[in-house]
């Protein structure tokens, strides 16, 4: 297309004038705007307990999907549970950031084993892990269980092994854990319930 000098000036003038008028607000849009869509609208709520410290704050985990057969659920948000008497909906920064903990690349999702002196971890099946733990527990208890002390009094203790339980357990699982561990004779037992 051939544009003469005169036509070029006309074009420039017209576009400058047009854009100036638009920028000065002579192209009003409708006064409508909307907030961001509420992202928990159709999520599934699941109650849980914070896995970090022994305060054991109540959580609600919001997951995508209605649990229909062909839909794969995914946790998209975690918040404090307002009905939980411990935290009444509040959380600390660790609890408030739990979503990244759930989706972390380095999160442990299956049993792993590192042999003495070995440099790397190797993956185990749950069956292998449980069998190995049971075997070692049994061997150690058979070897080190003390039924009577030097004075001849019955003590039934096993002090070469300790047990760490979770702070987030319910009363019922805490009761069962206590019964199992104490009945084996373990004395070094910590369930982190020190608050």
């Amino acid at each position, binding site marked *: 297309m051939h544009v003469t*000098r005169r036509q070029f000036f006309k074009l420039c003038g017209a576009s400058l*004038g047009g854009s100036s008028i638009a920028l*000065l607000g002579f192209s009003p849009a409708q*006064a409508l705007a909307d*907030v*961001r869509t509420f992202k928990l609208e159709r999520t599934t709520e699941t109650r849980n307990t914070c896995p970090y410290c022994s305060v054991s704050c109540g959580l609600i985990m919001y997951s995508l999907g209605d649990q229909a057969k062909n839909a794969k659920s995914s946790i998209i*948000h*975690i918040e404090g549970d307002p009905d939980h008497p411990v935290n009444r*909906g*509040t959380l600390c920064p660790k609890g408030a950031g739990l979503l990244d903990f759930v989706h972390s690349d380095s999160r442990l999702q299956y049993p792993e084993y590192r042999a003495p002196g070995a440099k790397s971890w190797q993956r185990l099946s749950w069956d292998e892990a449980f069998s190995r733990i049971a075997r070692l527990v049994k061997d150690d208890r058979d070897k080190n269980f003390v039924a009577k002390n030097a004075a001849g009094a019955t003590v039934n203790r096993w002090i070469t092994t300790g047990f760490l339980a979770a702070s987030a357990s319910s009363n019922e699982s805490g009761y069962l854990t206590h019964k199992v561990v104490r009945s084996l004779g373990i004395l070094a037992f910590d369930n982190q319930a020190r608050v």
Partner: protein
Amino acid sequence: MASQSLDIARRSATTTQPPNVRGDVPKVAKLIDISKCIGCKACQAACMEWNDYRDKVGTCNGTYNNPPDLDADQWTVMRFTEYEPEGGKLEWLIRKDGCMHCADPGCLKACPAPGAIVQYGNGIVDFHEEHCIGCGYCITGCPFDIPRLSKKDGKAYKCTLCSDRVAVGLEPACIKSCPTGALVFGTKDDMIHHAEGRIADLNSRGFAQAALYDPKGVGGTHVMYVLPHGDKPEIYDRLPKDPGISPWVSVWKGVTKPILGLGLGVIALGGFIHYVTKGPNEADDEDAKEDKHERR
């Protein structure tokens, strides 16, 4: 359209009338009680989770501020100050910084992009980034230096007061997380009432100057502080004592823009009248010759 509680009260660079038949809806407010804040940053984490942004891991700048400043990927930051009052004492002041949601928002007044900044009927000032042109005028217009331009998309971001949560009747994410109850949310009237109780308590504990920070220079704010040292807000990491919108915003938007618009109209009208009365300017022989010459 959002629920009626979120009717648009004001919209940037827009001259048409917003809907206002439904009358006054209750104004909301966030109250930050500085005397109860322990600086745990749960509000920061909750804000990141709800609003789906993650700042990159930064470096320590010698304070407990983490990250050191607000960013397009960090809409609230706890600002820590070591303050030494008289008598050799030390006070550790912690202020949750973020958008104050001014009743008279400087950002909205300065914004040239229609609909990029809106103020809802309940007082929340919200950015709509899809309309943002990234000019940064909102930063100039803000008396509190809050909006930040993103390096990723060149658009301005700040706290929305979780307008998406408030629209469905929930409190903002930071409010819900706060474990000490330093953050409270409700109608502005209720928050002022709550603050009065807190100030009376602080007065009885030796903070005679405790006061509510709800600066009149910006028409009051929808994020308010209870300051134990209410007479010296600037000790809380440069919280302005008497904030106001930069006079340049009102000079440019209030005076210059209408005059320029009028001038533009006069020029357009003059051009039209000139065209009608004198007609188009015909090319004379000399111009035509020149054109021919150029074409060769």
